[in-house]
Every structure is written in structure tokens, then in C-alpha cells.
């Protein structure tokens, strides 16, 4: 069943065609990866989906609802959560508080309710805290809950960011280069966490250029080059695809 | 409107406009090398005027102005060395507050040194009533001094940035600080230099305009806001556009006297500032895409 449907999407920056006529779908429950060499338009495509960049033409629908033209917060409210390539945690807040912000769309206390500490917020706060601690547990960083998030190690920060993105119980999780800046051990750890997240029934779309991570965990891969989609298949097929090898890996042998 | 009145307004507009342009260029020079808006920019103009007035009591006018400019320049350098040089990547908010604090200090110091009184330099040639006939109207020679000096400042500055190696190093700094450092340019000294330059041109402008607008301890704030309006109007960081923007604002102000009471005059230019900020934050002449890359 199709969860995310990207159709004929185009994006130009001045004279540069960053994404041209890209279409693909993401089915519920799968891990899908978008790969491509630097400058292939991966991040732009990602930003088009998350609402950070407006598209020039084409449609993006989620759960059969059009979401292109939405602002990022509206996309988030539809049930799409994301992480950032260069981790963006909220400084001066603990790991737990960071994750609790992620619960924003699933709670409703506003200015008045907050100021007057209305009774319905008591239960809500308790529920938020409980749920977020559970998530920290799931990502194996429960003991770091009260540590200031930005003082954690890079890998731990990544895990906090995952927890924060999961706190809204999204249908789709967008991961922007989750292995960026991590060493091979941390990358393996992240791969394990991503699989664990999928086992919770969450669909994952990731942009990545670490081949090992992508080949290991994804069910399907989309390959971009110069803004065009040149292949879409299973990891095994992609590894055999001549065009992909040519464009993405150059003439070298496939090492991964 | 008679053609004589029209020309009167036009000259008044150009006079004030050139001063705004100089203040705006002062903003731009510092902004380009540091990314900081120096809220104390208007105070340099006030200092130039006040110092030259005091010095003129015992020195001939040209010497008094020269020394006033040099002292202000040193003050500019000191401000940078004491308050800014040693801060490592301070946040914008922090820099805003620090430069506001500096402007308060300079203003309050001026208040205690010179009092609340309004002062002015004498006219450079002749006096209040002497005039020169240009086109079909009479213009005070001081107006020509202001326009002339501002024009010379602009020309010299652009020559300095284009042809001297120091000027080129400063430009290198503003386009890419890290790359400039890697090329062996001492970027910290360039920042000090930019403060000195801004202070100097501000002070010089403060001297030539003093006979017309008078100088008071708090005359810097108004100039700073207008100078900033002009800097934004021309596109922050773009000094040449600031000249046209300055003249434009000066002329708009001069002609609005007919329509708006004098008391609301300042409100006019600030409204223009707000409108520009809301509608075209990249300035009248700037490009939106380039502005998107800058950090405000």
C-alpha cells in the first residue's frame, strides 16, 4: 500500500535543475533509500518532501493527501517526521526535553492552558514524559535522559534525534544522511536502530551516501544522478545495475 | 511649487542624503568585514562634530577637523580592540547588545563632557546668510562643502578598495573570512581597520554638517537609524548603492516637509525602514538570492 507518492517533481535554482521529473513511491512498512553522488539532488528532494523548499512542479501526496506547498510544521502535523544531516538538537535542553518537544503534535495544551496550569494538562504532561522515556529506552539511551543534549557524543545525539522524531508517532520517518559524521561502529549501531524502528511499524525514507548502510538495511533504493532518477530497485539489483555502477561508482569495482 | 522652492528642497535633500549615505557606508564597511551592525555608528558622527567644535576654540579650523577625525578614528580602533577583537564567534544578539551599550557610553560621556547644549562649528566660508547662486536659487556654501566632502569620501573609498593592496585585503576579508586568513591576511587587523575607517568618515561627515544641522550629545541616534534605513534600502553591505539610497531618502524627507508636520519627520523615515524591511529586506537594488545567503 502506497504511503508516500512523489510524482514528476521538479525543482530549479536559478539555471540549475536540481531535481528533474523524479517520481517514486514508498510503501507502508518498508525502508527506502535515496542514493546518488554528491550534487545529485538528494538533499533537495528531501527538502521538497519535508516542506523546507517549495517545488516548481509535480505533486507529492501522503496517505492520498496532497502535501506539497505545505509549510514544514504542517508536513510534520500530517505524520512525517525528520532528522537533520548536521544534527539539530535544541541546546540548553536535556535529552528528555528534546524528545518531549517531538511530542508537540500529539498534545494540545496552548498558551492559556499552560499559564493557568489547567487540570487537563497535568495528565497530558505525564503522558508525554512517560512516552518519551519509553522512546529513550527503545533507543537504548534511557540513562542519558537528564543530560544536556548537546553535551552528548555524536552517536548519542543521533539517537536522541531519532527519539525526538519518533515521539510524534509518525507514519513516515525521513532520515537525512543518518550516518554522516559517524565511524563504522557507530554506523553499524545506527543501522541496527533503524531496523529496530522499522520493526515498530514505521516506514522509513532515508537519504544517504554511505553504501554499506544502505545496502544492508533498505528494501528498495532510488538512485539519483544530476537530478534525474536513473534506477529504482532492490539493493541486489542496484548493485548489478550497469548504469548505476557507471554513474555512481565510476569505473572502479564495486567494493561494498 | 515654484522652481526655486523645488531646487531649495532638492539641495536640502541632497545635503542630508549625503550625510545619511556616509553613515550607511560606515555601517557597510564594518558589516562587510565582521557581519556586525555597529549601533554606535551615529555616535562617531556626533563625536567628530563635538571634538572639532572644542578643538576649534584654540586651533584653526582645518587642523581642528583633522585632529577630531584622528581622535575619533583612534576611539573606533579602541572600541574594536577592547570590546570586539577577543570575542570568539559571538552571537548576533550579543553583538547587538554590546554595540548598543557602547553607543550609550559614548553618548553619556558626551553628555557629561559637553552638556545638553546645542553646538556648532562656524561656516567654513562666509556665514549663515552668505549664499551662492546656483541655477535659479541661492545655496549656502556649506551645502556645497557637505556635498563635496561626501563625494570625495565616496570616490576615495572606492579607489582605496579597488586599487590599494590594503583595500583589496579588506574586500577579501568580507567575501570570505576563512579563505582570507588562509591567504595570510590578518583578518583581525582588517576588522580594526574597518572600525577606524568607519569612525573616520563618520567624524568627517559630522564636522562638515555641523554648521547646518548643529551637534548635540544625542544627535547620533537619529542619524544611526536613518543611516541604517539607507544601508538596508541599498542592500546591506553594498556601499555604492547606499549613496543612491541616501540621496533618495534625503530627497523624500525634504519634500515631505510640505505634507507632514516636522515633528513626525523622523517617523517618516522609520516607516520607510519598516516597510523596506517587510517588503524587500534585501534592499531596493540588491538581489534576493544573494541576500538569502547572508546571515543577518
Amino acid at each position: 500500500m502506497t504511503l508516500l507518492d512523489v510524482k514528476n517533481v521538479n525543482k530549479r535554482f536559478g539555471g540549475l535543475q536540481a531535481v528533474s521529473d523524479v517520481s517514486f513511491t514508498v510503501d507502508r512498512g518498508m525502508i527506502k533509500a535515496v542514493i546518488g553522488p554528491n550534487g545529485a539532488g538528494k538533499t533537495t528532494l528531501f527538502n521538497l518532501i519535508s516542506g523546507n523548499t517549495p517545488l516548481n512542479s509535480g505533486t507529492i501526496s501522503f496517505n492520498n493527501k496532497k502535501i506539497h506547498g505545505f509549510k514544514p510544521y504542517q508536513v510534520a502535523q500530517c505524520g512525517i517526521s525528520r532528522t537533520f544531516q548536521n544534527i539539530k538538537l535544541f541546546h540548553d535542553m536535556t535529552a528528555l526535553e528534546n524528545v518531549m518537544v517531538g511530542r508537540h503534535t500529539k498534545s494540545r495544551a496552548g498558551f492559556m492552558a499552560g499559564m493557568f496550569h489547567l487540570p487537563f494538562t497535568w495528565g497530558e504532561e505525564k503522558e508525554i514524559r512517560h512516552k518519551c522515556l519509553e522512546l529513550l529506552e527503545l533507543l537504548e539511551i534511557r540513562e542519558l535522559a537528564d543530560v544536556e543534549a548537546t553535551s552528548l557524543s555524536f552517536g548519542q545525539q543521533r539517537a536522541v534525534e531519532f527519539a525526538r522524531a519518533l515521539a510524534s508517532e509518525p507514519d513516515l520517518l525521513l532520515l537525512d544522511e543518518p550516518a554522516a559524521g559517524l565511524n563504522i561502529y557507530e554506523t553499524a549501531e545506527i543501522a541496527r536502530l533503524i531496523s529496530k524502528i522499522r520493526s515498530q511499524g514505521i516506514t522509513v525514507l532515508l537519504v544517504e551516501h554511505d553504501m554499506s548502510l544502505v545496502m544492508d538495511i533498505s528494501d528498495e533504493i532510488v538512485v539519483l544522478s544530476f537530478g534525474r532518477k536513473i534506477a529504482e530497485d532492490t539493493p541486489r539489483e542496484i548493485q548489478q545495475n550497469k548504469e548505476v555502477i557507471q554513474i555512481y561508482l565510476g569505473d572502479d569495482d564495486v567494493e561494498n | 511649487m515654484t522652481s526655486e522652492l523645488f531646487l531649495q528642497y532638492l539641495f536640502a535633500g541632497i545635503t542630508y542624503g549625503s550625510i545619511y549615505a556616509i553613515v550607511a557606508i560606515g555601517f557597510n564597511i564594518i558589516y562587510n568585514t565582521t557581519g556586525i551592525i555597529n549601533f554606535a555608528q551615529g555616535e562617531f558622527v556626533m563625536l567628530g562634530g563635538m571634538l572639532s567644535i572644542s578643538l576649534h576654540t584654540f586651533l584653526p579650523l582645518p587642523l581642528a577637523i583633522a585632529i577630531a577625525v584622528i581622535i575619533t578614528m583612534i576611539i573606533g580602533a579602541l572600541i574594536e580592540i577592547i570590546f570586539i577583537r577577543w570575542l570568539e564567534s559571538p552571537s548576533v544578539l550579543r553583538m547587538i547588545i554590546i554595540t548598543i551599550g557602547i553607543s550609550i557610553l559614548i553618548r553619556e560621556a558626551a553628555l557629561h563632557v559637553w552638556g545638553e547644549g546645542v553646538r556648532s562649528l562656524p561656516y567654513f566660508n562666509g556665514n549663515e546668510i552668505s549664499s551662492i547662486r546656483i541655477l535659479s536659487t541661492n545655496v549656502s556654501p556649506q551645502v556645497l562643502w557637505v556635498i563635496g566632502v561626501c563625494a570625495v569620501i565616496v570616490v576615495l573609498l572606492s579607489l582605496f578598495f579597488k586599487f590599494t593592496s590594503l583595500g583589496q585585503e579588506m574586500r577579501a576579508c568580507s567575501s570570505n573570512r576563512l579563505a582570507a586568513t588562509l591567504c595570510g591576511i590578518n583578518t583581525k587587523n582588517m576588522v580594526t581597520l574597518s572600525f577606524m575607517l568607519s569612525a573616520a568618515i563618520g567624524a568627517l561627515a559630522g564636522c562638515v554638517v555641523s554648521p547646518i544641522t548643529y551637534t548635540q550629545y544625542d544627535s547620533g541616534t537619529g542619524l544611526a537609524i536613518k543611516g541604517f534605513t539607507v544601508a538596508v534600502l541599498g542592500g546591506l553591505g553594498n556601499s555604492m548603492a547606499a549613496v543612491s539610497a541616501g540621496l533618495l531618502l534625503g530627497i523624500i524627507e525634504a519634500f515631505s516637509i510640505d505634507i507632514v508636520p516636522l515633528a513626525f519627520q523622523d517617523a517618516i523615515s522609520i516607516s520607510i525602514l519598516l516597510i523596506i524591511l517587510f517588503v524587500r529586506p534585501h534592499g531596493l537594488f540588491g538581489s534576493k538570492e544573494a541576500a538569502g545567503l547572508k546571515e543577518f
Partner: protein
Amino acid sequence: MKTQRFIPFFLLALVLAGLQFLTQITDTSYYLTQMTMTAYYSLVIIGLCLVMGYAGQISLGHAGFFAIGGYTSAVLTTYNLIHLLEKGNSFVLFLAGKGLLVNGENLYGESLLYVTPWLACILALVLTALIAFLIGIPVLKLKGHYLAMATMGFGIIIYRVVLAWEIMGEADGISDVPGFTLMPGITVNGDFSNRIQNYYIACTILLVAFILLQNLIHSRVGRALRAIHGSEEAADAMGVNTARYKLYTFVLSAVFAALAGIFLTHYNGGIGPSEAGIMKSVRYVAIVAIGGMASMWGTLIMASVLNFLSLRGLFGSYDDAVFGVILIIIMLFAPDGILRLHIWQRFKKFKTGK
């Protein structure tokens, strides 16, 4: 957990009452006047603390909101409507019929008719909220220097308007503002005999406002605001409508400022243009910075101490200069505020074993 939360507030109330008691036994009750004014200024400053420290947006125009509140209330409660009534102005008749006008008499025995302070207060708050809302929509899209200059520009416009507009009393401001009777027996005014009562009125308002803000910053909204401060892009991606949250915060703090302006105007019996001046706005910002930006308690303490000292005239003619110096020193050496110097943080890190 529940009762624990209120212990600090209870202690604060105790300290405020203790201070009053202290002035009584030391026979220094003339301090109460400045203490009352300090409480109102602190109200402006804790509101601004929410905008600056939590939502991370600078405002150099908060004196403008204070002035809008104070002046609106002052104009409405001093503008003599008697001639309009005599002429049979239907709107004035309507107001009079609803009991929204008050009769009075001035020193020369002329009869006065003005809007009741309650109505004036509500209108002033609504007007301020409306202006803050309309100004906030475009202004809060700006960042950094542009935001600072735009809010400062707004402040200067308000200052120029009150200075140039005849109805605002121009350079003299407005005087002879009547007292504000909150309920029978409780009146905000500058009467000598009313001093203790007024001190408690001011403290109660400040305390209630402080508790409301404390509640807010520890709620879902407070978390979202701090998130905006931390990373606007990430907050957006978490589904926080950042533009709306910033706007509401701005309006809320403007209303606090206006409330302070209204009460202080009734207390002083007048308001002058200096209240709208840019130096006032800068001072508010300075105190928030000294208090540690994102620290309500620090801001409250600093606001009380510095305003009181300043109102007592301790800094003499160097009043503004003192704030300038403090501002620079704090920003250079302790940008997190003096109550949050690194010692405490190191201790915390030590405890968590980092």
C-alpha cells in the same frame, strides 16, 4: 510534587511582605514608593524575558507598549467629555447610560466627566494587543539585526507620536490621572495614606504574572518556545508553528508591558514621554540580559534590585551610563547572566559524571 512547585513562590511572597514589614519597623516607609514602581517595571521585564530568553527574539521597542498602555489609559481617564455630553453626543450619552463614565471636579470647581478607569484599562490592553499583533506579524519574520532595528524603529515612532501629538500632552505628558479603584476600598493611586496598600497591589500583580509565566515556560508551550530558540528549523520540523508561537509570545509580553504602564500611570497620577524613550527599552533589554536571558528568577531579581537602585537615584546623573556599562560587562564576560556563571554548570556536569 504539586505543593513543592509552590514553595518558591510562597517564599517570594514572604520576602515581599517581609520587605514591607522591614520598612515599617525601620521607619523607612518612603522606600515603598520606589518599591511599588519597581514592581511595575519588573512586570514589563519578566514579560520581555519570555520573548528574549525563551523565544529568542529581541525587542528594542517594549517601552513603546508600556507607553501605549499608559497613555491610552491616561488620555481616556483625563479627557473631559462634559462638553460632548452637553452637546448631546449620542456615543457619550450611551456610555453615560451604561455607567461607564465618572463625574468629578477639578481644583477650580469645573465639572469633569471621564471614562471609568476599568473601561480605559480594558481598552488600553485591547489596543496594545492589537498593535502588537499587527506589528508582530511582519516584524517577527525578521531576524538578528533586522529584528532589533525594526523593533527599535517601532519604539521611536511611538516616542515621536507621544511627543508630537497634542492630545498626549507633547513634552509635558499627561498629569492629573485619577486613581483606579479596583474594588471598593482598593485604589491604585499615589496617596500617601494608600502607600502600603498600593505596594501590595503591585506585588500581587507581579507575583500572579510571575507564576503565570513560570507555569507557561514549564508547559508544552514553554518547551516549544525554548525549542524555537535552540533551532527554529528543527522546531518547525517537529510540528511547532513557529511564526504563531513567536507572535503570541510577543503579544503576551506587550500586554504585560501595557498592564504595567496602565497601573504605574494611575499610581503616579501621570505619564511623560520619557517612558516611551528608547533608553527605557534598552534598559529593559539590559536587565533581561543581566538576569541571564533564559532565567525568569534571575531576571526578576535583577529587575527588582537595579530598578530600585535606579529609582532611588543611586546612580545620579550617570543613570543611563551605569546601565550601558553593566550591559557591556555582562555581554563581554557573562553572556548567560551573572547568576548563571559557569561554576554552577561545572558542578552539574561533575555530578552527572561528564
